[in-house]
């Protein structure tokens, strides 16, 4: 098992009443409500929490980024990863991930990631994402070319890491005539790439076809199973059998010494869901051109998603909250049914205090994660690091690939 700690780094104390009044809390919700003292305090508390997470034994720290919204204050994961590369000693730094299409120069990104990998002495996992709809607006990146840019930037990134320069890249969306950056990653052939997502079939298939682990972001049990079916089929088509080492899962999971306190913190996840679902504007979340044309009509006919009540989400394992024993029991169900070897625990959000966050991290590291490792061992859930799986399909020896035709 590879067990990670995650928080979205929310600006939990932003004036919610103002957002209620405005109707939205993202994109056009004014940054005049930003408070520098508060943000500085939060950033420093988060750093302390990450260092503590390493101390109590988590395997990895997962980082993500969003823009123009208080629900996630990481404007650039490479910056936090740089800080952590210098301040931590053992944990993997798992970027999930750099939003490739937003970059106009993926070679600069290759340099930044390379530097973090060098400083951390090879502890980096360099996940990649398309960036959500709001990110396209925040950076004025054309959503209609998002997937094309994602795939081309990926190809360029890999080439920049693995093929000695100088060479030139004259692509569809990127043109760079002198690629010869003097920063290359510490890990060879390149840092591992993981791909998080909330179930876009195209991305699941693309990840499987590259043999990159897919990290399902808090999807329902049924959706997660459907994802693995799609992933496994695509993996078989390109010639390998996908296993737990390709399966990652992120779950909201808050733990405290007693149940009452745990639910107090667990309910903070509802605020997050409000940000995403309740107060998001459909055309900011999904700008025209961002989604797949094949699902266009279905999306337009769908009713606006509303987060189910907290109690219902506890029942369906969308949120887990409780004492260490209670959460382990529930996480076991997820592990048994969906068999991930990479598990990220999204533990603290909304207005959970620094003190409570630290206690949650302590319990995760000292009680929950050791139990999960035992369960994972029993279920044979070995991480990509444990089985030393190839970093990609391109780096899988050809004689190990036995493609199965789609019709078989």
């Amino acid at each position, binding site marked *: 098992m590879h067990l990670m700690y995650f928080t979205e780094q929310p600006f939990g104390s932003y004036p919610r009443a103002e957002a209620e009044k405005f109707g939205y809390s993202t*994109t*056009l919700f004014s940054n005049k409500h930003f408070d520098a003292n508060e943000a500085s305090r939060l950033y420093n508390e988060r750093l302390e929490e990450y260092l503590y997470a390493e101390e109590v034994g988590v395997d990895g720290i997962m980082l993500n980024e969003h823009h123009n919204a208080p629900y996630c204050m990481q404007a650039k994961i490479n910056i936090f990863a740089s800080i952590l590369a210098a301040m931590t000693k053992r944990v993997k730094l798992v970027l999930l991930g750099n939003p490739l299409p937003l970059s106009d120069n993926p070679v600069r990104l290759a340099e930044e990631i390379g530097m973090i990998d060098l400083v951390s002495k090879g502890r980096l996992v360099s996940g990649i994402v398309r960036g959500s709809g709001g990110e396209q*607006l925040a950076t*004025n990146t*054309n*959503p*209609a*070319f998002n997937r094309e840019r994602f795939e081309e930037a990926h190809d360029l990134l890999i080439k920049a890491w693995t093929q000695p320069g100088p060479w030139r890249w004259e692509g569809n969306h990127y043109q760079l005539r002198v690629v010869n950056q003097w920063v290359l990653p510490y890990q060879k052939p390149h840092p591992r790439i993981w791909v998080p997502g909330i179930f876009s079939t195209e991305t699941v298939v693309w990840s499987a076809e590259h043999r990159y682990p897919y990290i399902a972001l808090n999807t329902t049990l049924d959706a997660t199973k459907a994802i693995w079916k799609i992933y496994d089929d695509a993996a078989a088509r390109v010639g390998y059998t996908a296993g737990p080492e390709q399966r990652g899962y992120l779950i909201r999971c808050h733990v405290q010494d007693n149940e009452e306190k745990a639910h107090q913190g667990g309910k903070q996840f509802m605020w997050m869901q409000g940000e995403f679902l309740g107060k998001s504007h*459909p*055309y*900011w979340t999904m*700008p*025209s*051109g961002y989604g797949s*044309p094949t699902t*266009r*009509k279905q999306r*337009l*006919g769908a009713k606006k998603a509303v987060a189910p009540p907290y109690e219902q989400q506890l029942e369906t394992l969308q949120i887990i909250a409780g004492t260490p024993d209670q959460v382990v029991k529930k996480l076991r169900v997820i592990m048994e049914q969906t068999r991930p070897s990479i598990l990220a625990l999204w533990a603290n959000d909304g207005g959970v205090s620094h003190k409570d966050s630290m206690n949650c991290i302590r319990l995760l590291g000292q009680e929950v994660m050791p139990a999960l490792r035992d369960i994972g061992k029993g279920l044979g859930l070995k991480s990509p690091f444990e089985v030393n799986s190839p970093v990609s399909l391109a780096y899988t020896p050809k004689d190990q690939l036995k493609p199965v035709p789609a019709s078989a």
Partner: protein
Amino acid sequence: MTIALAATKKETVQVGSLKVQMLKGGKGSPLLVLHREFGSPGWIQCLEELAAKHTIYLPSHPGFDSSDLPQWARSVRDLACLHLWLLDELKLSNIDVLGLGFGGWIAAEMATMNHKAFRKMALAAPMGVQPKEGEIYDQFLVGPLEYIQTCFHDKTKCNQQWGSQPTVDQLEIWEINREMTTRVAWKPYMFDQSLPHLLPGVKTPSLIVWGKEDKIVPASCGKQYQQLLPNARLETIAGAGHCVEYEKPSELAKLVGDFLA
């Protein structure tokens, strides 16, 4: 209201590898009508009135409505090139054009590329130039219905056209058209920095029409077009927003009809 007329017919024109859908109707000298970014209006009253003296060619831009999508297209100039190609396929040259909003921008681009493409050019509140005052309304920050309603001075006229709760089929057409608009006009949003430098070469007699209550494209753009085109006059229609052809169909038909006469 959209008017169904036996005299109109749907045609498919092959433009390179693309099939372009077109509505044709009326009698008289050819008039190319280039639609807005939310799609072909169909045979609306304004066009019916113009059709008394003109044969109207109303193509759906490549990538819009059910015309084929040019995956490679990145700019409004690309669409303008395809429309010049379309005219070639239809064996039309030196004809009249009416460009509505976004379609007006396409017409202007066509004119800069072929100074002989049009005999006369009527543009209703065209996008395409960066406003010296104000900003072009950003439709991508709102949904299609809210945007189209904002295109009207009188929202009830908009609702008469599409209803206050459009069908999923209508939403799908709007979405297809928004996607194509995104492809060609996302950045810079709805203008081209080189167009103002090319317009002075277009000597085509031009009529620029602006709805007095236009909340989409600032009135300053009308003045800019008038000043940049060497042979243009600017007219304003009271009581109309951006969608002049829907809100004041007869007034626009008369202005354009008289200009083309």
